[in-house]
């Protein structure tokens, strides 16, 4: 739980009047390779503990690492997509420190010779004055291996403080991890939190389009550490803090915002910002100090003697460059034009994390308006209610295509369609199975409808009078009664048409 004392903050706008923020973002991408970085153990998520381990990833005495070719390939592609230079010759290095989640008590990483360096990623942030573009410069993209997973037992929150002991599962140890470090992001001012979020979002989409990783922040295949420092305008950069445990795009934005407010309060109070690692709390949106380190770490980096240098040839790099997919921003512009929608409508899709789902639905044959309507309307509402991601809902583009086809041929109304989706989401089966089980058939045959209409008119004679008298909108009451009588399965539009015709009234 967050600390019991309240942390001082200065409101955001006020903080930005006095100070300018400088940001740094470090993201780790867990690659979706079939095997680990340095051994052939499987990488599937969720395996039984310590069943996806071997002498190499357990660091047993005598074991030796061997580099996964696909990991190198993916890293080069990531670097190229980020407009980086690719090293013609580079090595791995050992980062030496002791921690129980590290089987060798050193991590094989890259130090002063990253595989990719000096790139950039352009991001767009929406402002009151329209979209603004920022170029985030990339310092480096390098390869390393992931650690095991620690579970802390005892204590009250499962976090380290107060635990009696810990349990380690090394299934994750050795999975390829690619670290992407930005150069300091300067000049974003009040847009800093949004620039940070936009960068991570764009990076994520880029990685997805490359097919190198799932990049799910909620599953740990995309991790982000946020570095923030403040200084009065024109003065040298301030001391930065590093915030970890930032597990969603929204948290990226919130963490940056909070740190700006917090550091502003510290500096305004005449104190100095402590260089430390902080922990972000999802529930409060605050950061608290992490483990204080008594002694500075000295990682004693040296070139990894068990591995030989990686020297990608020009030919190989060009081969990989040819495999780069369309950049997400270019793709979005193309789809926007193809679908004939506006920038704002496209942005809505992106913000709702619905773009891929909508594209897939359109590919399944659904009209773009209907596809957008379902995903950003009904399903976004349901996803928010259930507290899940849109893509985790049980409904698929194929379901939507089927429903839309049934609406088109009159077998379903929009209202019935919602009931169908309700059934699909509840796991009752596919579209046709739900329709059958729930009896969601449009009541459309004229005689049944006329019978219901006549019954409703008989029940509400005064309404009949009103309609005949010209108050056409009163027809709604009759239509409503018919809908009720048919358990919502009547085609409301048809009922209305029949009713008015029956009464001899024009629309």
């Amino acid at each position, binding site marked *: 739980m967050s600390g019991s004392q309240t942390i001082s903050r200065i409101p955001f706008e006020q903080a930005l009047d006095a100070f300018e923020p400088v940001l740094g973002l470090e993201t780790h991408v867990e690659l979706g390779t079939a095997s680990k970085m340095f051994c052939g153990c*499987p990488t599937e998520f969720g395996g039984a503990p310590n069943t996806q381990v071997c002498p190499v990833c357990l660091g047993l005495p005598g074991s030796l690492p061997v580099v996964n070719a696909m990991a190198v390939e993916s890293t080069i592609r990531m670097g190229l997509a980020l407009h980086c230079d690719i090293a013609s010759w580079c090595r791995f290095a050992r980062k030496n420190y002791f921690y129980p989640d590290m089987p060798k008590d050193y991590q094989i990483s890259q130090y002063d010779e990253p595989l990719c360096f000096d790139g950039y990623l352009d991001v767009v942030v929406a402002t009151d004055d329209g979209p603004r573009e920022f170029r985030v410069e990339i310092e480096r993209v390098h390869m390393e291996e992931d650690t095991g997973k620690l579970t802390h037992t005892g204590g009250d929150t499962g976090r380290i403080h107060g635990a009696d*002991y810990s349990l380690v599962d090394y299934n994750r140890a050795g999975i390829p991890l690619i670290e992407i470090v930005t150069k300091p992001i300067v000049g974003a001012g009040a847009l800093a939190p949004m620039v940070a979020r936009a960068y991570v979002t764009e990076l994520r989409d880029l990685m997805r389009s490359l097919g190198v990783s799932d990049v799910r922040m909620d599953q740990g295949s995309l991790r982000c550490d946020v570095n923030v420092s403040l200084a009065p305008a024109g003065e040298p950069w301030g001391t930065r803090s590093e915030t970890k445990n930032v597990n969603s795009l929204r948290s990226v934005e919130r963490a940056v915002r909070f740190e700006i407010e917090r550091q502003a309060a510290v500096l305004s109070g005449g104190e100095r910002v402590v260089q430390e690692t902080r922990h972000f709390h999802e529930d409060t949106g605050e950061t608290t100090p992490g483990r204080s380190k008594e002694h500075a770490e000295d990682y004693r980096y040296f070139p990894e003697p068990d591995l030989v240098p990686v020297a990608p040839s020009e030919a190989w790099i060009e081969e990989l460059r040819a495999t780069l997919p369309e950049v997400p921003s270019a793709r979005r512009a193309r789809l926007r034009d193809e679908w004939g929608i506006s920038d704002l409508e496209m942005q809505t899709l992106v913000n709702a994390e619905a773009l891929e789902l909508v594209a897939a639905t359109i590919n399944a044959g659904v009209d773009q308006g209907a596809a957008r309507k379902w995903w950003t309307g009904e399903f976004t509402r349901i996803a928010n209610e259930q507290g899940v991601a849109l893509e985790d809902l049980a409904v698929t583009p194929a379901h939507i295509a089927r429903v839309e086809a049934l609406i088109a041929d009159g077998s379903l109304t929009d209202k019935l369609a919602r009931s169908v989706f309700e059934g699909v989401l509840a796991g009752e089966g596919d579209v046709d199975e739900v329709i059958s089980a729930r009896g969601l058939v449009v009541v459309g045959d004229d005689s049944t409808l006329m019978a219901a209409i006549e019954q409703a008119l008989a029940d509400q004679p005064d309404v009949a009078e009103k309609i005949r008298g010209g108050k056409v909108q009163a027809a709604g009451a009759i239509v409503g009664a018919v809908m009720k009588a048919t358990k919502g399965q009547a085609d409301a539009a048809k009922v209305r048409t029949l009713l008015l015709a029956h009464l001899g009234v024009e629309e």
Partner: protein
Amino acid sequence: MAAITRAEVEHLARLARLELTEGEIDHYAEQLSAIVDAVTRVSEVAAEDIPPTSHPIPVTNTFRPDVARPGVDREEIAAAAPAWEDDRFRVPRILGES
């Protein structure tokens, strides 16, 4: 004399996770000083433009294909573990006060 001090030995012992006795600290300070003196003769060699050797034999680009194969039997791993609970290695509490 390079003179490795007590304080330096304590620092090295901490970095290397060695809980030395008081006597050992003094003893090693003396021995390490003598050894460091001897080995730092290497600094007499003018080597600014010489590239360092990290690998004696010039091999590059040794890779393996991205193919998964089963891991090692968990029973054998568990049998060798100093402490094991719930299918995992049990380790003492992290962040204790030293």
